[in-house]
């Protein structure tokens, strides 16, 4: 959560003499809140000066333009002439003059442009008299359209000379605004006082703030206190209210506007600004009600903190109406809701120009309730943002007193009631004990006890040392939501001591004995093999869309669905990588007619725990590692795909794989797919994709794919390699070509040959021919046969006999003929 903080202003809360903003940013970031950006404020108003209009003349060539003679100080000999169209321009006016080189935004919109010398309708203009929105001050000084900024009206209390830089006049010259990131647990540091406390401890500088108190309120007139009733003190642990009468509302003075603006807030009116100002100072959001607009109870104003009733509505300050429900905590008067607790105020009770009597609220609300309400109604505010992080009940008296103090200053009036304070129970500060030895052990460096104690004290902990090394620390109220254990005290000491002062030490020790995940090592090996074989690795999303799945002929209904998908492209967890690979092939096909892709990723099966149909996903899915490949290489793609898988199995040490024609119809091409089995387990499906599916993806070429369930594949993988000494007897080779029916499969032929004799040690396919010279429906299969014996040199007669026997077998089994 980021907040904007004026460095200049911060110096009122902590003595930062001699600390530059750069140094502040650097040192704070290493121990606490991070200053992410630094914006110099005055820079924007560079070359914009205060001018005094000494004379006005008619523009000879334009009705709506006039020539203003403006005194811009000693740098120019005499008043300069500026062409101006401002409707409120008059003699003796104090104006903002942008000189040549200044940056302005024409009519407050568009980009900032650098002002250059100009001649307008034939008249020279040495600069520009600005409207507030042309120099980025619209929020601070609202005025009518076509008017110019009248500094005499805007800053009645400021006396300047012509030529004074406007930034000086506004007190902005030396200021910078820091954009500070405060972590969500440290909402206490999201304000001037909290940040000053941090800075004081981290930089070792004096903390200058002391809270306002309420003594004047106690002695105030004996009017009845505001009646406050809380229906659920878990949702509202504390509520304080005080009434101030006889106030005058109106625009805030410049100093207030400026402080709000530097924090990124708009000025509304004095009373509203006061509540925001207190929030910026103390991180405690406040609210102010116009007493006159509240429905009174028997004894005067009543405030009920309760859950909304059925059908209650509220018109909120953002001009929207919200229907409330019984989960929404509201602030109500005697009859109706006047605010959504901690989130946003209601229009009906809002303060306005005529407000004379107000009730200030300072309260604490349950963070979860505020957060849920904001989410439910989709309303977000500075107040809600702070409440939902968790605020201390003990901030309230300070906030209320400060608001009253500022009101009496800016709006006059008097305190008209004793403050009301309703709370759930007595406050008890948490306290934790740690030992200095423990702190040293956890941080890994010895920090003297006095230093440890000093750091905690600087941060506001009440510390007592017990025994030889026990530190007992009472948590200050502003830290009661984030300091939850002794471990937190260690963190406080470590960060202020400085992480940069802790030496880096690499842990040593014995190797650990965790379960080894073999899959990871094999997966890595597989990637290396695939890359070596010329495949390119893809990474696609684990979730996919109905569209892609249906195009591939898969049924999405069996998949685990995402309840809150980002788009229709990501609706369920995939059970196969193949559809996304087809999609990738399709998207690349126009540029790449030749593609070889692979992906290794988990797929998500129902698993054994989710087998009962209709009962939903009771258990986590089975996350199975899978490899998918796609080959867009032409007619022989299936052969490349299969060759790659054979190569992969070889590299993984998997031998004796049996390949069987894939009978499954659907995704695969009915005549061109095959499956690999090892010990009866499926370890790969390979082949061409069905032409219908390929065309669903608008792919023009043939695509061959591979699908390997890697858990099964890896279960057979081995890194062990066996060595058999080569035979000392020479081997014999013979080529054999047989003509068989085209539907006879090579694998069967090879197996038949091999079974003929154990001395036939290898059958190697090298060609299949079909066509001219062969009868229709026949093919010729050509093979190299290797014969070898471990015991002797085979004689030609032996080899011939074996070959003959093999051919005989083929004749019997397949009606084969020698070619």
């Amino acid at each position, binding site marked *: 959560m980021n907040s904007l903080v004026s460095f200049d202003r911060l110096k009122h809360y902590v003595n930062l003499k001699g600390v530059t903003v750069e140094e502040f940013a650097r040192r704070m970031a290493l121990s606490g809140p991070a200053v992410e950006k630094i914006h110099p404020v005055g820079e924007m108003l560079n070359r914009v000066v205060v001018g005094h209009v000494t004379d006005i003349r008619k523009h000879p060539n334009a009705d709506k333009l006039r020539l203003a003679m403006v005194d811009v100080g000693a740098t120019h000999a005499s008043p300069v002439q500026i062409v101006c169209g401002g409707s409120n321009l008059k003699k003796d006016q104090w104006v903002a003059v942008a000189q040549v080189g200044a940056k302005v935004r024409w009519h407050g919109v568009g980009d900032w442009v650098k002002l250059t010398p100009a001649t307008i309708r034939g008249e020279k203009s040495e600069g520009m008299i600005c409207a507030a929105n042309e120099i980025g001050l619209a929020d601070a000084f609202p005025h009518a359209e076509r008017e110019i900024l009248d500094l005499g009206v805007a800053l009645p209390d400021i006396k300047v000379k012509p030529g004074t830089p406007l930034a000086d006049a506004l007190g902005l010259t030396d200021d910078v605004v820091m954009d500070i990131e405060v972590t969500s647990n440290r909402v206490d540091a999201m304000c001037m006082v909290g940040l000053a406390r941090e800075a004081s401890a981290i930089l070792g500088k004096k903390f200058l703030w002391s809270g306002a108190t309420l003594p004047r309120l106690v002695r105030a007139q004996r009017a009845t206190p505001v009646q406050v009733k809380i229906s659920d003190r878990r949702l509202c642990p504390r509520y304080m209210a005080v009434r101030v009468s006889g106030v005058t509302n109106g625009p805030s003075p410049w100093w207030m506007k400026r402080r709000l603006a530097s924090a990124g807030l708009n000025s509304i009116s004095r009373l509203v600004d006061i509540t925001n100002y207190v929030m910026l100072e103390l991180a405690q959001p406040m609210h102010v009600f116009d007493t006159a607009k509240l429905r009174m109870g028997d004894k005067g104003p009543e405030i009920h903190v309760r859950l909304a009733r059925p059908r209650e509505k509220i018109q909120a300050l953002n001009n929207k109406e919200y229907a409330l429900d019984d989960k929404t905590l509201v602030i109500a008067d005697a009859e109706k809701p006047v605010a959504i607790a901690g989130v946003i105020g209601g229009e009906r009770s809002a303060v306005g120009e005529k407000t004379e009597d107000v009730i200030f609220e300072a309260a604490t609300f349950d963070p979860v309730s505020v957060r849920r309400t904001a989410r439910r109604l989709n309303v977000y505010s500075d107040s809600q943002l702070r409440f939902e992080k968790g605020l201390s009940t003990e901030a309230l008296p300070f906030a209320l007193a400060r608001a009253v103090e500022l009101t009496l200053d800016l709006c006059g009036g008097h305190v008209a009631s004793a403050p009301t304070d309703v709370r759930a129970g007595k406050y008890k500060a948490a306290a934790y004990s740690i030992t200095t030895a423990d702190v040293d052990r*956890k941080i890994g460096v010895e920090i003297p006890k006095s230093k440890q104690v000093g750091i905690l004290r600087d941060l506001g902990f009440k510390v007592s040392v017990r025994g030889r090394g026990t530190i007992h620390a009472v948590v200050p109220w502003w830290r009661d939501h984030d300091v939850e254990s002794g471990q937190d005290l260690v963190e406080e000491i470590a960060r202020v001591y400085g992480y940069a002062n*802790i030496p880096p030490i690499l842990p040593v020790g014995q190797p650990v004995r965790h*379960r080894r995940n073999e899959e990871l090592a094999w997966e890595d090996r597989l990637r290396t093999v695939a890359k070596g074989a010329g495949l390119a690795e*893809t990474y696609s999303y684990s979730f996919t869309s109905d569209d892609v799945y249906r195009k591939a002929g898969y049924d999405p209904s069996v998949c685990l669905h995402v309840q809150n998908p980002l788009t229709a492209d990501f609706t369920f967890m995939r059970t196969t990588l193949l559809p996304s690979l087809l999609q*990738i092939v399709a998207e690349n096909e126009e540029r790449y007619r030749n593609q070889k892709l692979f992906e290794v990723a988990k797929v998500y099966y129902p698993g054994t725990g989710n087998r009962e149909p209709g009962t939903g996903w009771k258990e986590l899915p089975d996350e199975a590692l899978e490899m998918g490949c796609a080959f867009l290489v032409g007619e022989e793609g299936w052969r490349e795909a299969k060759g790659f898988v054979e190569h992969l199995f070889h590299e993984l040490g998997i031998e004796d794989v049996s390949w069987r024609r894939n009978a499954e119809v659907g995704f695969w091409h009915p005549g061109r797919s095959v499956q690999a089995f090892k010990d009866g387990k499926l370890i790969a499906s390979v082949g061409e994709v069905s032409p219908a599916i390929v065309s669903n993806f608008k792919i023009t070429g043939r695509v061959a794919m591979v699908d390997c369930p890697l858990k099964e594949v890896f279960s057979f993988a081995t890194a062990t390699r066996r060595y058999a000494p080569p035979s000392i007897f020479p081997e014999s080779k013979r080529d054999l070509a047989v003509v068989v029916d085209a539907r006879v499969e090579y694998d069967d032929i090879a197996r038949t040959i091999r079974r003929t004799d154990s001395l036939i040690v290898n059958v190697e396919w090298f060609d299949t021919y079909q066509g001219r010279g062969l009868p229709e429906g026949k093919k010729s299969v050509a093979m190299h046969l290797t014969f070898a014996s471990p015991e002797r040199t085979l004689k030609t007669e032996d080899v011939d006999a074996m070959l003959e026997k093999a051919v005989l077998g083929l004749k019997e089994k397949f009606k084969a003929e020698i070619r």
Partner: protein
Amino acid sequence: MVSEKLSALKDEMLKAVEAASSLADLEAAEIRFLGRKGELTAVLRSLGDLPESERRELGRMANEVKMEGERRIAAARERLSASAASSVADSERVDVTEPGTRPPEGHLHLVTHAIREITAIFERIGFVRTREPEVEWDWYAFESLNMPPDHPARDEWETFFMDAPVHPKWGKMILTPHATSGTARILASEKPPIRAINIAKTYRRQIDVTHVPMFHQFDGVYVDKDVSLAHLIGVLDYFAKEYFGPERRARLRPHHFRFTEPSFEFDISCGVCNGTGLGPDRQKCRTCKRGWLELGGAGMLHPNVLKAAGLDPKKFSGLAFGWGVERSAVMKSGVQLDDLRVLYKNDMRFLGQF
């Protein structure tokens, strides 16, 4: 008669050998005279028909001619070979600037490269890589990490929920928004000393130029007796220097995570501006924030997290760290990824560059 024939043959032979201008010519001459069917060989064979008295003298003579021929041929061969060797520069010249025949060229994804490198770095200091579920129970992703239901910290992760009934014990089924859920599983299943690193796909409901709904994170954990902050700083410093290079600096900034205490954000000095925060034009560096790049989160395991895993926080302490793989890769390699979504588009023009 025969002797004259021999001497004529010798002259002819030596002339032919001298005349040979190439190894091929020489070979032809050798075959013509000394080959199996050569002219000199024929003479030698015919000697058998001569009477004993002539045979011996002529035999000696013929042998001398043969030896002389062999000697001359050997000398000529040496001479011609040398000149042939010196001329292959021209005769066998090829255009070597033509490209070579490459083996097939495959590619591994940028993320794989990064995961390999990160894994190797941590394996060197004894961390074991593990693999944990990506579809996970709320318990491991949030509850056991000290993030009770309704804690605002949960909002920081835009979580995907699965269309599955809420488990009575483990809560909702979700997609892991961070790899720390894997750490929670490791803590629950292993006994100290634990040194593990979980690298996994993680999911968040965001997609724009700087966010993708699926990305990769690694999350390391080390639990033992007396694990200290100094160890955490040591491990992070080691990683920074190993992965990014010895000239890069690391710093820790206090941060807030529910599962660690203290918690940090881990920054690396910017490699573009060298940590100065200023670009080449002396304007603000566009890559970093004031000289530093945010890399990831780290911290000492919260006692509640150890307790949730059944470990005694009085006996053991631990450190944990984790961040995005893609982010690390991009920050390191200077890959100009203006749009992170490119990583998962699988355009060959992208894939082919790694």
